[in-house]
């Protein structure tokens, strides 16, 4: 498989490194020589200097035999033009585009059905809003992802001192009351991912990824003593692109929201479009303002300004003043490892969200969606079992999945269940697989059927 990536910024870089890691052919195009050098020194990809919107550069990149082209530069216009020419030169190539301007969303269908036949439009801001909404659904969790149209959820929980799972062997967990509906998919201990076995014992401070059917979620979370009190009051800091979209989404859900924005004219605009949200003009790091607006009563403080240092400071300040939890927007991927150490509950990054969304579409075979989890050490894939696949009709424990991969959920028509070793997989089942990065190509191979006999 060959992928052409236009734009070597954060999004382009991270997608390139993920795909190249899986031994696929990657070509990266950018006009900036320094950005290209960074890519070519760190990853095994081909780099081409030039504008992605230039047909000759696209040809030079071998777009004719590329399966996927990703236009992820910072400029919407360049992205669209690049896709337009990619469409002329190679109509078969699947095109994914990052478009920021909400205006384009009005013509989403036209862009998809007519030239340039864009397969998927990714708006990083909207992806970030979705990510925030997922976090808000379980405020006590570190990481939340949903599968099978929301019927199965993957929740990352940090084990606290009062957790009932502490000191238990994994094989003993099903005997704990109300634990029957969950499965432990992975444990992250000291930044390292462990695929646990029956004999492993859980310890305090472990980040445990559990898979659970949504209908039993509250019950399971209560058992685990995870905070499930719904979010009723939210304070947003920063009213830019993500902030304003978030405010509108919160308004729809009838959550009491206050939004703080520094720039008076942006405040004016926000006040014009929003009805129930209280728009406040001021500085998010201003302690008096936060106090006046009762930050201590907030269920969640979300900092979304364009300046990540300010976001971090505001979040920490709000937390210190008593806010229950916080979500912080951070763009620099290199800051991610620091986050937990300094006391930030969740991070959101439009770029990371865009990377995740794009990865879902790049997966080969019958893979429907994919999400990457903490530190990008593993992925959760959702896939349909093909008709003549070697896995169908077999008991799970008999299937030779590579080590590091685990089937954590099955959806069969209207039924969902968490499988055990004796569950049988059938064709057309939707299965959810937890897999460490190294084995993903093997899984893709198992799930892609070889049909081409002609």
């Amino acid at each position, binding site marked *: 498989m060959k992928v052409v990536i236009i734009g070597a910024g954060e999004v382009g870089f991270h997608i390139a490194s993920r795909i190249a890691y899986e031994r696929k052919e990657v070509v990266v195009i950018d006009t900036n*020589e320094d950005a290209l050098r960074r890519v070519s020194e760190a990853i*095994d990809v081909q780099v081409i200097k030039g504008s992605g919107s230039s047909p000759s550069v696209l040809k030079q990149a071998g777009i004719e035999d590329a399966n996927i082209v990703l236009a992820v530069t910072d400029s919407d216009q360049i992205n669209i033009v690049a896709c337009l020419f990619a469409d002329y030169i190679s109509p078969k190539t699947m095109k994914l585009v990052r478009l920021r301007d909400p205006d384009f969303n009005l013509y989403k269908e036209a862009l998809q059905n007519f030239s340039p036949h864009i397969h998927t439009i990714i708006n990083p801001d909207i992806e970030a809003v979705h990510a925030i909404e997922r976090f808000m659904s379980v405020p006590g969790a570190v990481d939340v992802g949903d599968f099978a149209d929301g019927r199965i959820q993957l929740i990352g929980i940090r084990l606290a001192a009062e957790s009932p799972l502490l000191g238990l062997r994994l094989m003993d967990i099903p005997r704990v009351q109300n634990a029957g509906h969950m499965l432990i998919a992975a444990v992250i201990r000291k930044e390292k991912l462990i695929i646990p076995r029956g004999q492993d014992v859980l310890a305090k401070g472990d980040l445990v990824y559990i898979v659970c059917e949504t209908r039993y979620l509250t019950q399971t979370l209560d058992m685990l003593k995870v905070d499930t009190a719904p979010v009723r009051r939210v304070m947003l800091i920063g009213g830019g692109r993500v902030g304003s979209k978030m405010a509108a989404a919160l308004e729809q859900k009838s959550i009491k929201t206050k939004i703080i924005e520094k720039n008076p004219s942006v405040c004016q605009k926000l006040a014009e479009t929003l009805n129930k949200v209280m728009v406040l003009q001021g500085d998010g790091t201003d302690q008096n303002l936060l106090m006046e607006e009762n930050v201590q009563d907030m269920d969640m403080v979300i900092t979304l300004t364009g300046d990540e240092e300010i976001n971090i400071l505001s979040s920490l300040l709000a937390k210190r003043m008593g806010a229950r939890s916080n979500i912080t927007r951070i763009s620099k991927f290199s800051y991610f490892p620091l986050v937990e150490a300094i006391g930030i509950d969740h991070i959101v990054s439009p770029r990371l969200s865009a990377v995740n969304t794009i990865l879902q579409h790049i997966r080969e075979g019958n893979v429907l969606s994919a999400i990457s989890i903490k530190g990008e050490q593993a992925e959760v894939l959702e896939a349909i079992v093909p008709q003549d696949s070697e896995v169908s009709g077999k008991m799970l424990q008999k299937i030779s999945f590579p080590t590091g991969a685990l089937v954590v959920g099955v959806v069969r028509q209207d039924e969902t269940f968490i499988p055990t070793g004796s569950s049988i997989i059938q064709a057309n089942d939707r299965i959810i697989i937890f897999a460490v990065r*190294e084995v993903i190509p093997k899984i893709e191979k198992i799930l892609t059927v070889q049909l081409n006999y002609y």
Partner: protein
Amino acid sequence: MRWRYTLCFVGILSVFLGLTMIIPLICSLITQDDSARSILLSAAITETFGLLLFFGFRIRNNDYISPREGIAIVALGWIAAGFFSALPFYFGHVFETFTDAFFESVSGITTTGASVMTNIEGVSSSLLLWRSFIQWLGGMGIIVLSLAILPLLGVGGMQMYKAEVPSPIPDKLKPRIRDTAMILWKVYAGITIAEIVFLMFGDMSFYDALNHALTTMPTGGFSTKNLSVAHYDSVYIETVIIAFMMLAGINFSLHYQMLLGKPLAFWEDSECRFFISFVLIVTLIVTINIYPVYDSFGKALRYASFQVVSIVTTTGYGSADYELWPSMSQMILLLCMFIGASAGSTGGGMKCMRIMIYFKYCYKELISLIHPRAVSHIKLNAQPVSSDVVSSVLGFLGLFVGLFALSSVMLAAMGVDLVTAFSAVASAIGNIGPGLGTVGPTENYASLPAMGKWLLVWCMLLGRLEIYTIIILLVPEFWRK
């Protein structure tokens, strides 16, 4: 730097090199010569060493190799390869001292082709095949070959590739390094097979054709005959070898483009154009200059073209004793040793691309004296060359000339005469083979003092890995944490 990684990879390379000793072993079994035991012993030692390193320093995931580790792996890997390829010669009693065996094997893998064998035809055919074969391995590069066929080296391979195939302007044929390496080796092997066929049409035995093809394509120059190519005294064979030396001296990515259906690829590339024109002009000058020696235009052209191509592509075969030529021709050949072949080819020397960039830079400096406000760019193939590349080229040329000067003074200090010292170092650092004086085309390096041989081994490695990869081992900063 993580020693663990470096040593593990050196172990992998050694295991790999040990496995290739099967080839001379098979030859030995077929021809029933008495070298089978020494080859088996060498293979066993190489494998033991390689496996010990590999298992002793086994690494779990090889996801990232830093540039520094890449350089260390390549540099130490080549030194280890030189050491182990010397073993069959040493155990086979071809040489009396290990110094000679090591000199011969490094001269092989670096594609120099300088020999210390006094009677080549007296050596068993399996050992001569091994001598040609290591030259063939070294031509395209041991690391590049391992990248192409060993999945182990997949991810961190790029750093090593850069250290082994340094080129002023990096060239990646395919997005993945493994695919690039695979293409290069396929093209390389394909042309080698073609040459075997062509040589056999010229009534060469299969064994000789194989050996000469294995040493033409890496621009190495080891022959199985004492008189080198002059032994055959055949215009046909010389023409075939000239053609294939030229092919070997051209950037291999152009061969690939040509195979993809771009017949004009050679002529469209400015470096290739420069290389071909340069060879033609020098041949013409030398032909005219040596006409009085042979008294026949045909003969003069025949010997001049062969010797010029042989030296410019840094192969080093001999078809005539150029020491009998007028000194102008000898001087021209000596200077040609520095120029070398194209970047991305198997040839050595400074490389045409660097020379072109250097002259364009000089010209630009002159222009800026006349038009102080002129804004201009150095261009190659209508593409601007970035200033980083220009300064690295200038740095390279400076180091090349500096190391050449230093080494020839050192060799002269060991009591070697001026012409010999000068030409031997030029020949070694440019990976050519024969020089002038006592190391001329009809003589060999056996008479040099042992210290001088070690010095030339060092020069050959410097030349093959384009200086930086080897010289960096002497920089203390490289070894610091």
